[in-house]
């Protein structure tokens, strides 16, 4: 029989992060969102709590925790604010993950301690203006000349890449051709401040407004050959594996966001009166809330199972894609119901429903769109 109890540590973790999110993030989330401002302050506080490098070994400054604990933390942050959750989830899976999983000893010792303490951040540059879902079609190139990589090209939509505390990025670049004529893609480390490298903050987002998103330009950026991450030509596989794990984080953001939007809707529907009674008393509304509660429960079970598989070191790619897809679509439905139940006030930023609604949409697009998740799942079905 499966065991649905969390460990006492996981319970305490949830409580602590919930408490932190309620007391430190909630009071400022609206203001940061309005100003489209990334908060270095909150990032450092989250670093002190140990929210970066959660699954990294303590040898490199991480917390050595299991995947489920990590997902619970992201869920609790997202219940209050998608943007801080995004900073944490992207940093753990995209910023820190590849360096920890594919870096050599020297690279890990050099970069991980500062990243795991939240002192600095790191981006993972895959997407280009003309290559998102079709990442294999990217154009950015790195040529090896006299023992150095010379990188040219650009990246777009890169989370955590253009903050004041960003220390660098891992960039996916074409590094030649493979024997079969296909492009060889590799990951290369580029530190902030390398001549020819610029990271520009992107603004006017509808969603995740206080999470940092950057555009990267590489103009003859020259870095040592030793900045190669993992095997030459292994970049595409590294990216696929990184995204498998990353999906659990996005799933957690969907689950936590859905929980937050649901709680807001529940509270409001019990207070708002129309035709002489709370609107929650109308069956159509009560049923909506019942459906939300049910779908959130199902989403949580699916996501936690995917984490459990990963923690057991079993294959989890299919379940991770399912959890990412399902949790973000549950959040979609719940956020929609939440706004609907709030009526006109649901469209005003004074209430949290509007922000949940806006922040939700990214989850069906980032780290593999919903369509791409369905492609991944169909492939597991042999289709």
């Amino acid at each position, binding site marked *: 029989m499966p065991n649905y109890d969390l460990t*006492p*540590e996981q*319970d*305490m*973790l949830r*409580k*602590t992060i919930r*408490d*932190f999110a309620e007391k430190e993030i909630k009071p400022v989330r609206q203001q940061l969102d309005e100003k489209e401002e990334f908060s270095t302050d909150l990032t450092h506080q989250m670093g*002190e*709590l*140990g*929210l970066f490098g*959660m699954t990294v070994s*303590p040898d490199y400054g991480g*917390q*050595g*925790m299991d995947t489920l*604990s990590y997902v619970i*933390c992201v869920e609790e942050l997202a219940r209050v604010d998608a943007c801080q959750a995004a900073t944490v989830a992207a940093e753990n899976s995209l910023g820190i993950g590849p360096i920890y999983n594919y870096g050599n000893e020297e690279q890990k010792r050099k970069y991980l301690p500062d990243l795991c303490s939240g002192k600095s951040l790191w981006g993972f540059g895959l997407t280009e203006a003309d290559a998102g879902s079709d990442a294999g079609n990217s154009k950015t190139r790195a040529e090896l000349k006299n023992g150095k990589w010379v990188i040219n090209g650009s990246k777009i939509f890169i989370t955590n890449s253009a903050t004041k505390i960003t220390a660098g990025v891992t960039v996916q670049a074409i590094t030649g051709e493979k024997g079969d004529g296909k492009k060889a893609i590799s990951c290369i480390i580029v530190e902030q401040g390398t001549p020819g490298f610029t990271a520009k903050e992107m603004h006017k987002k509808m969603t995740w407004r206080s999470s940092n998103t950057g555009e990267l330009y590489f103009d003859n950026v020259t870095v040592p050959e030793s900045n190669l991450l993992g095997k030459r030509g292994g970049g595409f596989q590294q990216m696929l594996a990184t995204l498998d794990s990353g999906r659990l984080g996005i799933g957690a953001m969907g689950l936590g966001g859905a929980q937050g939007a649901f709680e807001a809707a529940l509270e409001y529907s019990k207070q708002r009166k129309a035709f002489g009674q709370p609107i929650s008393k109308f069956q159509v509304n009560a049923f909506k809330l019942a459906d939300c509660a049910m779908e959130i429960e199902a989403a949580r079970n699916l996501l936690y199972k995917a984490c459990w598989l990963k923690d057991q070191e079993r294959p989890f790619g299919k379940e991770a894609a399912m959890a990412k897809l399902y949790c973000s679509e549950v959040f979609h439905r719940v956020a929609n119901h939440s706004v609907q139940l709030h009526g006109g006030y649901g469209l005003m930023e004074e209430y949290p429903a509007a922000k949940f609604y806006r922040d939700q949409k990214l989850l069906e697009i980032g780290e593999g769109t919903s369509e791409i998740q369905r492609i991944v799942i169909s492939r597991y079905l042999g289709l």
Partner: protein
Amino acid sequence: MKIAVLIKQVPDTESKIRVKSDGSGIEETDVKYIVNPYCEYAIEEAIRTKEKIKAGEPEAPVATVVISLGPDRALEALRTALAMGIDKAIHIDSEGKIFDGFQTAKILAGVLKAGAFDLIFCGKQAIDDDNSQVAQMTAEFLDFPQVMIIQKFDLTPDSKGALVTRQVGGGAREIYEAVFPLILGCEKGLNTPRYASLPGIMKAKTKPVEKLKASAFLGDTGPLTQFIHYQLPPERAAGKKLDGEAPQQAHELARLLREEAKVI
């Protein structure tokens, strides 16, 4: 130096309290429990005191111990204190009984005496029954000095006592110098309790938790007060809104105060 922290687990202020139908207590099933907020200041001050001493003298022997009397669920509160940074926990099992403040103080005094502590921090009161008596009575049993409702704490230069400040009426402050062993009741403003960090939570798993039984320290001490019956305060009746111009309103208000409220 041995520092003890006395903590109580109490219902979360956000929990809806329901009284059992026979009035013998509160319905515990739906209640979420937390560490009494004033006890959190006590935990934080103990950890800071240890950190301060260690910063000056890394080899100095300083031990912090958190103690709670209560049912099994009190373990959760103790674990929180360990995750924040306390070294060791003592759980005194209440063995299914409810004690009044006097008995609680007797039990705690027994445990503290056995531990030979120099400095004891506790919350100025617990937010569940708001008795504000246990710390003082514990001090009395032990014949230790005590200062309650403190907002500032500093060790004396020789580390054999402390300088503490408490706010009194009209914004005035009382400053005490007291020698160890000493019991202090912590008030809001003393510090900002830290969040348990993730590494802290992991470390707490391996920290020792000693189990004691309340009966071993209570002896035949009976209660001085008894719980007879629990009831919720009456629901507040709807307010009254006065209409008309200000002079009429004033007139009506005076009439209501005299005739209905009968306070003037």
